[in-house]
């Protein structure tokens, strides 16, 4: 766990964001909200990762920064794919919301 006290807000809010994102991803039928929720989850995770940079007492660890940057790139590509899919689905569904009820295969 983050030993330094000043990392705690990052860690805590990161976890909170993750849970919030998870909740939205699961419960909201609108696809755009789902995509955004995924990004919120991502941000939460990144914040937890960043809090790890404060390990120990010396210089901040640079590795998490690198990881987060890579993560953001990956998240952006994923978001792009998701949005592209959403756009393709838009005319089919007549909107960006998933139809109510259990989907058929």
């Amino acid at each position: 766990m983050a030993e330094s006290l000043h990392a705690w807000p990052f860690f805590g809010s990161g976890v909170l964001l993750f849970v919030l994102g998870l909740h939205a991803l699961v419960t909201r039928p609108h696809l755009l909200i789902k995509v955004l929720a995924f990004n919120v989850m991502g941000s939460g995770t990144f914040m937890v990762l960043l809090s790890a940079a404060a390990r120990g007492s010396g210089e901040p660890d640079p590795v998490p920064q690198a990881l987060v940057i890579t993560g953001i790139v990956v998240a952006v590509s994923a978001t792009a794919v998701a949005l592209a899919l959403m756009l393709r689905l838009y005319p089919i569904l007549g909107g960006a919301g998933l139809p109510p009820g259990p989907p058929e295969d």
Partner: protein
Amino acid sequence: MSIGATALTLVPLAPLLLALVLPAGKGAWRLTPLAVLPALGAVLLLPDATRAHLPEVLLGVRLALDPVSRGFLLAAALLWGAAAVYARGDLRDDPHVVRFHVFFLLAMAGNLGLVVAADAVVFYTFFALMSLASVGLVVHRCTAEAWRATWVYLGMAVLGELCLFTGLILQVHAVGDPSLERLVLEAPPDGLAVSLIVVGLGAKAGMVPLHLWLPLAHPAAPTPASAVLSGAMIKAGLLGWLYLIPRGEAMAGVGTWLLVAGLAGAWFGVLAGVLQQRPKTLLAYSSISQMGLMTAGMGLAVQAPELGPALTAALVFYVVHHGLAKGALFLGTGIARQVSLPWLLLGLGVPSLALAGLPLTSGAMAKSLLKTPLEATQGDYSAVLLLMALAAAGTAVLMLRFLALVLPGAGRDGGGSWAMRLPWLLLALAAPLLPWCWDPAAAWALLSPGKLWTAAWPLLLGVGVALAGFLLFRRVRVRVHLPEGDLWWLLERAGRAGVQAVARQPVLWRSPGGTLYARLGAWLVRGWGTLQDRALEAERHMRRWEVLGGGFTAWILILFGVLWWGLGG
């Protein structure tokens, strides 16, 4: 293989091979009488103790000719030959003549083969061949009567075979060798095995109460078949007993059993036969009676080993005598309507009186041979002797009744061909001639007054009883009639009634298992369907995002919980 062995092998092989080629040629069935020639040749030409060994056939086939089998072979060969010649005339116009002859030859092969068998397995093999092939003879006419007789015959034959099989295998295992020579000497006095052998062969030998098939099968079968059934085939049982029943103290019980059953059969055959309407049925009962006497002789031989050789010799002669005489009677009965009275009197009268033990005939000699050892020994056999003599009187009554049934039906000459008449008359002639051919010295000895009287008084008694009975029943006009197959008639009725009684009670025969099974099946099918529906519903439910997310979260909690709990926090 030596010439003798080859010849011995040919005895059963000749009819067997002929049976196989018979369906091929159109008139080949006419060759049937020739099939007995190897047997006759063997009887006349082969020395005693001729042996044949075919190690690769079956479990190793051994054949042998000894004095006992020679006598049996003689009777069988003559009778089968005569019947075969007779059949040429009798079945000339039968549409199934070839079929008849195939089965006839197969049965002949079985009968001749079992006589020369020197090995229990071979004996059993030929015995089975004979029993099963003669089914074809019994059923030949395909009438309702024939079918009924066939089923009874078949059932008893199969039961008999199985008893014999079991008895044989027990004895063979105990001795360690199926050779008949060793079996008769070394077979242990195993009560179960011997009983099975007695019963198994008894079914063939018409031992009371295993005789049920005889009175049904004989009238149903064509005449030549009845002749060999009654004259030759039932003797196979006796031969088997001679070979397979161990002798000695330990077997006294079995001997007594045979003696009692034999005497009972001798008397029962007479009583039941007298009450018959059809001559062939009557002859069948007569065979039961005569076999009863032989069975009694067998019982004595078992009971008293010291009498064994003499009694065996007597039984062999009895077999020849009865076989030929009974054959003549059957053949004669078959053409009674086509020959005139004098011929009938000669051809039926002589053999029937011979059966009754008329002096100067083979019957007298047979009975004398059977009694002499009993009289000569120390044991007290007077009761047995008396019963035997009375049975002879009974036979006389029976034979008179037979003649009374047949003679009025005499027709006019010209109908029956010589092919039928000749074998009949030759067999009939055997009755007076046989003693002189067999053992002239013994035949001479029978001419002493004492012997003549011994032979004659039962006959006279019988004639007297018969006359009395005839007069009585003429006066009273009561017709006493015993159904053919006596006990079987009862059994059949009882069986039918039982089946009907069961059939009226569906509860007894409709298995509850069936409906239970069907219900279970339906329940399973329904259950499976419900399960499938539920599962599909659940699967659809799981596809909802909320459920998926819930599951995801739940998993995280569960897994963490298990880790926490497992590692003690």
